[in-house]
Protein backbone atom coordinates (compact mmCIF):
# COMPACT_ATOMS: atom_id res chain seq x y z
CA UNK A 1 0.00 0.00 0.00
CA UNK A 2 2.59 2.54 1.14
CA UNK A 3 4.83 1.49 -1.76
CA UNK A 4 2.05 2.20 -4.26
CA UNK A 5 1.56 5.66 -2.75
CA UNK A 6 5.31 6.33 -2.94
CA UNK A 7 5.50 5.23 -6.57
CA UNK A 8 2.55 7.50 -7.37
CA UNK A 9 4.27 10.42 -5.63
CA UNK A 10 7.48 9.79 -7.57
CA UNK A 11 5.45 9.80 -10.81
CA UNK A 12 3.81 13.12 -9.89
CA UNK A 13 7.16 14.72 -9.07
CA UNK A 14 8.68 13.43 -12.30
CA UNK A 15 5.78 14.98 -14.23
CA UNK A 16 6.45 18.33 -12.55
CA UNK A 17 10.11 17.97 -13.54
CA UNK A 18 9.00 17.56 -17.16
CA UNK A 19 7.00 20.80 -16.94
CA UNK A 20 9.96 22.67 -15.46
CA UNK A 21 12.28 21.16 -18.08
CA UNK A 22 10.15 22.80 -20.78
CA UNK A 23 10.79 26.17 -19.15
CA UNK A 24 14.48 25.35 -18.77
CA UNK A 25 14.85 24.69 -22.49
CA UNK A 26 12.50 27.34 -23.88
CA UNK A 27 12.71 30.08 -21.25
CA UNK A 28 13.66 33.34 -22.89
CA UNK A 29 15.85 34.86 -20.15
CA UNK A 30 18.55 33.51 -17.84
CA UNK A 31 16.56 34.08 -14.59
CA UNK A 32 13.69 32.04 -16.04
CA UNK A 33 16.01 29.17 -16.76
CA UNK A 34 17.74 29.47 -13.41
CA UNK A 35 14.40 29.30 -11.55
CA UNK A 36 13.42 26.29 -13.64
CA UNK A 37 16.74 24.65 -12.80
CA UNK A 38 16.19 25.39 -9.09
CA UNK A 39 12.78 23.74 -9.25
CA UNK A 40 14.22 20.76 -11.12
CA UNK A 41 17.04 20.14 -8.69
CA UNK A 42 14.95 20.57 -5.54
CA UNK A 43 12.33 18.24 -7.00
CA UNK A 44 15.05 15.75 -7.84
CA UNK A 45 16.16 15.96 -4.21
CA UNK A 46 12.62 15.09 -3.10
CA UNK A 47 12.51 12.23 -5.62
CA UNK A 48 15.81 10.92 -4.25
CA UNK A 49 14.43 10.98 -0.70
CA UNK A 50 11.29 9.15 -1.84
CA UNK A 51 13.36 6.54 -3.66
CA UNK A 52 15.46 6.04 -0.54
CA UNK A 53 12.29 5.39 1.46
CA UNK A 54 11.05 3.08 -1.29
CA UNK A 55 14.28 1.07 -1.29
CA UNK A 56 14.40 1.08 2.56
CA UNK A 57 18.03 2.24 2.53
CA UNK A 58 18.53 5.27 4.78
CA UNK A 59 22.08 6.08 3.73
CA UNK A 60 20.82 7.18 0.33
CA UNK A 61 19.00 10.10 2.00
CA UNK A 62 22.25 12.02 2.52
CA UNK A 63 22.65 12.50 -1.24
CA UNK A 64 19.36 14.37 -1.44
CA UNK A 65 20.50 16.76 1.29
CA UNK A 66 23.66 17.40 -0.66
CA UNK A 67 21.87 18.10 -3.93
CA UNK A 68 19.55 20.62 -2.27
CA UNK A 69 22.46 22.39 -0.54
CA UNK A 70 24.49 22.39 -3.70
CA UNK A 71 21.93 23.94 -5.82
CA UNK A 72 21.50 26.72 -3.31
CA UNK A 73 25.17 27.54 -3.82
CA UNK A 74 24.94 27.08 -7.59
CA UNK A 75 22.14 29.61 -7.89
CA UNK A 76 24.14 31.98 -5.67
CA UNK A 77 26.91 32.06 -8.27
CA UNK A 78 24.59 32.90 -11.13
CA UNK A 79 22.73 35.50 -9.05
CA UNK A 80 26.05 37.07 -8.15
CA UNK A 81 27.08 37.19 -11.78
CA UNK A 82 23.78 38.73 -12.89
CA UNK A 83 23.94 41.28 -10.08
CA UNK A 84 27.02 42.59 -11.84
CA UNK A 85 29.55 42.61 -9.01
CA UNK A 86 32.92 40.95 -9.08
CA UNK A 87 32.80 37.57 -7.34
CA UNK A 88 34.53 37.92 -3.99
CA UNK A 89 33.79 41.62 -3.54
Amino acid at each position, binding site marked *: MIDAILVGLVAIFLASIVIAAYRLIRGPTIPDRMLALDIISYTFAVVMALVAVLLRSPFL*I*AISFMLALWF*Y*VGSLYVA*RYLEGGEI*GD
Partner: protein
Amino acid sequence: MKARTLAEVLFTAALFLVLAYAMTGYPEFGFVRPLGGFFLYHTFNEGNPGLWSGSPNAVTGILWDYRGYDTLFETMVFYIGTVAVVIFFERRARLRQTRGMSMIVSASTRLIFIFIITSALTITIFSVKGSGGGFQGGSIMAIAYVAILVALSKGFLPQLKINVKRAHLLRTLGLTIIAAMTLTPIVFSIATGTEAFALQNQAKEWAPFGFPAFLGLRSLSGGSIIPIQIGETLFVGMGFTIMFTLLTLKGGDEDGDGEEEGGGGEKKAGKEAEG
Protein backbone atom coordinates in the same frame (compact mmCIF):
# COMPACT_ATOMS: atom_id res chain seq x y z
CA MET B 1 26.99 36.81 21.85
CA LYS B 2 27.33 33.92 24.29
CA ALA B 3 23.76 32.77 23.74
CA ARG B 4 24.27 32.98 20.02
CA THR B 5 27.44 30.89 20.13
CA LEU B 6 25.63 28.33 22.28
CA ALA B 7 22.74 28.24 19.81
CA GLU B 8 25.17 27.70 16.94
CA VAL B 9 26.91 24.87 18.77
CA LEU B 10 23.59 23.21 19.62
CA PHE B 11 22.38 23.59 16.04
CA THR B 12 25.59 22.02 14.73
CA ALA B 13 25.41 19.16 17.20
CA ALA B 14 21.76 18.42 16.38
CA LEU B 15 22.48 18.45 12.66
CA PHE B 16 25.49 16.20 13.19
CA LEU B 17 23.38 13.66 15.07
CA VAL B 18 20.61 13.65 12.46
CA LEU B 19 23.07 13.27 9.60
CA ALA B 20 25.01 10.61 11.46
CA TYR B 21 21.79 8.66 11.95
CA ALA B 22 20.99 9.04 8.28
CA MET B 23 24.46 8.00 7.15
CA THR B 24 24.81 4.93 9.35
CA GLY B 25 21.39 3.44 8.79
CA TYR B 26 21.17 -0.08 7.51
CA PRO B 27 18.90 -1.83 5.08
CA GLU B 28 17.18 -4.86 6.53
CA PHE B 29 19.55 -7.35 8.13
CA GLY B 30 21.03 -9.92 5.79
CA PHE B 31 20.42 -7.97 2.59
CA VAL B 32 23.53 -8.20 0.38
CA ARG B 33 23.79 -7.15 -3.24
CA PRO B 34 25.74 -9.54 -5.54
CA LEU B 35 28.67 -7.12 -5.94
CA GLY B 36 28.67 -6.63 -2.18
CA GLY B 37 28.87 -10.40 -1.78
CA PHE B 38 31.99 -10.53 -3.95
CA PHE B 39 33.75 -7.90 -1.89
CA LEU B 40 32.65 -9.42 1.41
CA TYR B 41 34.15 -12.71 0.24
CA HIS B 42 37.48 -11.03 -0.40
CA THR B 43 37.72 -8.69 2.57
CA PHE B 44 37.07 -10.68 5.71
CA ASN B 45 36.66 -14.32 4.79
CA GLU B 46 37.66 -16.50 7.72
CA GLY B 47 37.60 -19.62 5.58
CA ASN B 48 40.07 -18.32 3.02
CA PRO B 49 42.74 -16.23 4.74
CA GLY B 50 45.01 -16.29 1.70
CA LEU B 51 42.68 -13.98 -0.23
CA TRP B 52 41.39 -11.56 2.33
CA SER B 53 42.51 -8.05 3.09
CA GLY B 54 42.23 -8.75 6.77
CA SER B 55 40.00 -5.77 7.38
CA PRO B 56 36.90 -6.42 9.48
CA ASN B 57 35.35 -3.32 7.91
CA ALA B 58 34.54 -4.05 4.26
CA VAL B 59 34.47 -0.39 3.22
CA THR B 60 37.99 0.08 4.57
CA GLY B 61 39.09 -3.09 2.83
CA ILE B 62 37.84 -1.89 -0.54
CA LEU B 63 38.91 1.72 -0.19
CA TRP B 64 42.32 1.12 1.25
CA ASP B 65 43.50 -2.37 0.33
CA TYR B 66 42.03 -2.53 -3.16
CA ARG B 67 41.97 1.13 -4.15
CA GLY B 68 44.73 2.63 -2.02
CA TYR B 69 46.93 3.71 -4.91
CA ASP B 70 43.91 5.20 -6.65
CA THR B 71 43.33 7.48 -3.67
CA LEU B 72 47.03 8.25 -3.40
CA PHE B 73 47.37 9.29 -7.04
CA GLU B 74 44.15 11.31 -6.86
CA THR B 75 45.73 13.20 -3.99
CA MET B 76 48.91 13.69 -6.01
CA VAL B 77 47.05 15.07 -9.04
CA PHE B 78 45.14 17.44 -6.83
CA TYR B 79 48.37 18.54 -5.15
CA ILE B 80 49.91 19.41 -8.52
CA GLY B 81 46.77 21.34 -9.51
CA THR B 82 46.92 23.40 -6.33
CA VAL B 83 50.62 24.10 -6.83
CA ALA B 84 49.93 25.31 -10.38
CA VAL B 85 47.25 27.74 -9.20
CA VAL B 86 49.47 28.98 -6.40
CA ILE B 87 52.41 29.56 -8.77
CA PHE B 88 50.34 31.56 -11.24
CA PHE B 89 48.10 33.56 -8.94
CA GLU B 90 49.83 33.95 -5.62
CA ARG B 91 49.84 37.46 -4.21
CA ARG B 92 49.83 38.58 -0.64
CA ALA B 93 46.60 40.37 -0.17
CA ARG B 94 44.76 42.47 2.31
CA LEU B 95 41.25 41.12 2.57
CA ARG B 96 38.86 44.01 2.73
CA GLN B 97 35.25 43.59 3.74
CA THR B 98 32.95 44.90 1.06
CA ARG B 99 29.25 44.95 0.55
CA GLY B 100 28.51 41.35 -0.39
CA MET B 101 25.00 40.38 -1.39
CA SER B 102 21.74 41.46 0.25
CA MET B 103 20.99 40.77 3.91
CA ILE B 104 18.54 37.94 3.22
CA VAL B 105 21.10 36.06 1.17
CA SER B 106 23.87 36.72 3.71
CA ALA B 107 21.80 35.49 6.65
CA SER B 108 20.66 32.32 4.92
CA THR B 109 24.19 31.69 3.68
CA ARG B 110 25.48 31.77 7.26
CA LEU B 111 22.98 29.06 8.20
CA ILE B 112 23.80 27.04 5.09
CA PHE B 113 27.51 27.38 5.93
CA ILE B 114 27.01 25.61 9.25
CA PHE B 115 24.91 22.96 7.54
CA ILE B 116 27.51 22.34 4.83
CA ILE B 117 30.46 22.14 7.24
CA THR B 118 28.55 19.72 9.46
CA SER B 119 27.61 17.49 6.57
CA ALA B 120 31.21 17.53 5.32
CA LEU B 121 32.38 16.26 8.71
CA THR B 122 29.62 13.65 8.80
CA ILE B 123 30.44 12.40 5.34
CA THR B 124 34.12 12.18 6.24
CA ILE B 125 33.80 10.40 9.56
CA PHE B 126 30.93 8.06 8.73
CA SER B 127 32.37 7.08 5.37
CA VAL B 128 33.43 3.89 7.13
CA LYS B 129 29.79 2.87 7.21
CA GLY B 130 28.03 4.52 4.34
CA SER B 131 28.74 6.40 1.18
CA GLY B 132 31.23 9.23 1.21
CA GLY B 133 34.91 9.70 1.83
CA GLY B 134 37.71 12.19 2.12
CA PHE B 135 37.51 13.71 -1.35
CA GLN B 136 33.76 14.20 -1.13
CA GLY B 137 33.97 15.70 2.35
CA GLY B 138 36.78 18.01 1.26
CA SER B 139 35.01 19.33 -1.78
CA ILE B 140 31.85 19.84 0.26
CA MET B 141 33.84 21.81 2.83
CA ALA B 142 35.39 23.90 0.06
CA ILE B 143 31.98 24.73 -1.34
CA ALA B 144 31.01 26.16 2.05
CA TYR B 145 33.90 28.62 1.86
CA VAL B 146 33.11 29.44 -1.75
CA ALA B 147 29.52 30.24 -0.79
CA ILE B 148 30.85 32.61 1.88
CA LEU B 149 33.17 34.18 -0.73
CA VAL B 150 30.32 34.73 -3.14
CA ALA B 151 27.60 35.88 -0.77
CA LEU B 152 29.49 37.70 1.97
CA SER B 153 32.62 38.90 0.08
CA LYS B 154 36.16 37.71 0.63
CA GLY B 155 36.65 40.05 3.58
CA PHE B 156 34.52 37.70 5.65
CA LEU B 157 37.01 34.83 5.47
CA PRO B 158 39.35 36.23 8.19
CA GLN B 159 36.40 36.24 10.57
CA LEU B 160 36.21 32.50 10.05
CA LYS B 161 39.90 32.39 11.05
CA ILE B 162 40.85 31.35 7.53
CA ASN B 163 43.43 33.07 5.38
CA VAL B 164 45.69 31.72 2.67
CA LYS B 165 48.62 31.11 5.00
CA ARG B 166 46.56 29.15 7.51
CA ALA B 167 44.90 27.23 4.71
CA HIS B 168 48.37 26.24 3.47
CA LEU B 169 49.28 25.08 6.98
CA LEU B 170 46.11 23.00 7.36
CA ARG B 171 46.59 21.52 3.91
CA THR B 172 50.15 20.52 4.78
CA LEU B 173 48.88 19.01 8.03
CA GLY B 174 46.42 16.86 6.10
CA LEU B 175 49.10 15.78 3.66
CA THR B 176 51.43 14.92 6.55
CA ILE B 177 48.77 12.72 8.14
CA ILE B 178 48.31 10.83 4.85
CA ALA B 179 52.05 10.42 4.32
CA ALA B 180 52.60 9.25 7.88
CA MET B 181 49.86 6.65 7.64
CA THR B 182 51.22 5.49 4.28
CA LEU B 183 54.83 5.18 5.35
CA THR B 184 54.39 3.79 8.87
CA PRO B 185 54.18 0.13 7.68
CA ILE B 186 57.42 0.52 5.70
CA VAL B 187 59.25 2.01 8.66
CA PHE B 188 57.89 -0.78 10.82
CA SER B 189 59.07 -3.33 8.28
CA ILE B 190 62.60 -1.91 8.14
CA ALA B 191 62.78 -1.64 11.92
CA THR B 192 61.63 -5.17 12.72
CA GLY B 193 62.72 -7.08 9.62
CA THR B 194 59.22 -8.43 8.91
CA GLU B 195 57.21 -8.11 5.72
CA ALA B 196 54.97 -5.09 5.22
CA PHE B 197 53.87 -2.91 2.33
CA ALA B 198 52.89 0.69 1.80
CA LEU B 199 49.23 1.49 2.54
CA GLN B 200 48.89 -1.65 4.62
CA ASN B 201 46.03 -1.47 7.04
CA GLN B 202 45.46 -4.73 8.88
CA ALA B 203 47.67 -7.66 9.71
CA LYS B 204 47.82 -10.60 7.32
CA GLU B 205 49.40 -14.01 7.66
CA TRP B 206 52.58 -13.02 5.86
CA ALA B 207 52.69 -9.38 7.01
CA PRO B 208 52.10 -8.96 10.72
CA PHE B 209 51.85 -5.17 10.81
CA GLY B 210 48.44 -3.76 11.64
CA PHE B 211 47.13 -0.40 12.72
CA PRO B 212 45.38 -0.42 16.07
CA ALA B 213 41.62 -0.07 15.96
CA PHE B 214 40.50 3.35 17.09
CA LEU B 215 37.51 3.88 19.37
CA GLY B 216 37.90 0.33 20.62
CA LEU B 217 35.71 -1.27 17.98
CA ARG B 218 37.56 -2.83 15.08
CA SER B 219 34.64 -3.02 12.71
CA LEU B 220 33.53 0.53 13.45
CA SER B 221 36.87 2.23 12.90
CA GLY B 222 38.56 -0.19 10.53
CA GLY B 223 42.10 0.72 11.53
CA SER B 224 43.69 3.61 9.68
CA ILE B 225 40.73 4.88 7.72
CA ILE B 226 39.41 7.67 9.93
CA PRO B 227 42.72 9.61 10.25
CA ILE B 228 43.36 9.18 6.55
CA GLN B 229 39.92 10.46 5.60
CA ILE B 230 40.27 13.44 7.92
CA GLY B 231 43.66 14.21 6.38
CA GLU B 232 42.22 13.95 2.89
CA THR B 233 39.31 16.21 3.82
CA LEU B 234 41.63 18.88 5.21
CA PHE B 235 43.88 18.58 2.16
CA VAL B 236 41.16 18.80 -0.49
CA GLY B 237 39.00 21.36 1.30
CA MET B 238 41.84 23.74 2.07
CA GLY B 239 43.32 23.22 -1.43
CA PHE B 240 40.08 24.34 -3.07
CA THR B 241 39.78 27.22 -0.61
CA ILE B 242 43.28 28.43 -1.54
CA MET B 243 42.49 28.14 -5.24
CA PHE B 244 39.25 30.08 -5.05
CA THR B 245 40.64 32.75 -2.73
CA LEU B 246 43.63 33.33 -5.01
CA LEU B 247 41.44 33.37 -8.12
CA THR B 248 39.13 36.01 -6.66
CA LEU B 249 41.94 38.33 -5.50
CA LYS B 250 42.64 41.23 -7.77
CA GLY B 251 45.84 43.07 -8.60
CA GLY B 252 44.84 46.11 -6.59
CA ASP B 253 44.86 44.26 -3.30
CA GLU B 254 48.05 45.09 -1.45
CA ASP B 255 50.24 43.44 1.15
CA GLY B 256 49.08 43.35 4.71
CA ASP B 257 47.90 41.24 7.56
CA GLY B 258 44.57 39.77 6.57
CA GLU B 259 43.03 39.31 9.97
CA GLU B 260 43.09 42.78 11.47
CA GLU B 261 42.13 44.33 8.18
CA GLY B 262 39.06 42.12 8.00
CA GLY B 263 37.86 43.29 11.42
CA GLY B 264 38.49 46.95 10.61
CA GLY B 265 36.73 46.62 7.31
CA GLU B 266 33.69 45.21 9.04
CA LYS B 267 33.38 48.29 11.26
CA LYS B 268 33.71 50.48 8.20
CA ALA B 269 31.02 48.54 6.39
CA GLY B 270 28.78 48.86 9.47
CA LYS B 271 29.23 52.63 9.44
CA GLU B 272 28.37 52.77 5.78
CA ALA B 273 25.22 50.76 6.43
CA GLU B 274 24.18 53.13 9.22
CA GLY B 275 24.79 56.17 7.06
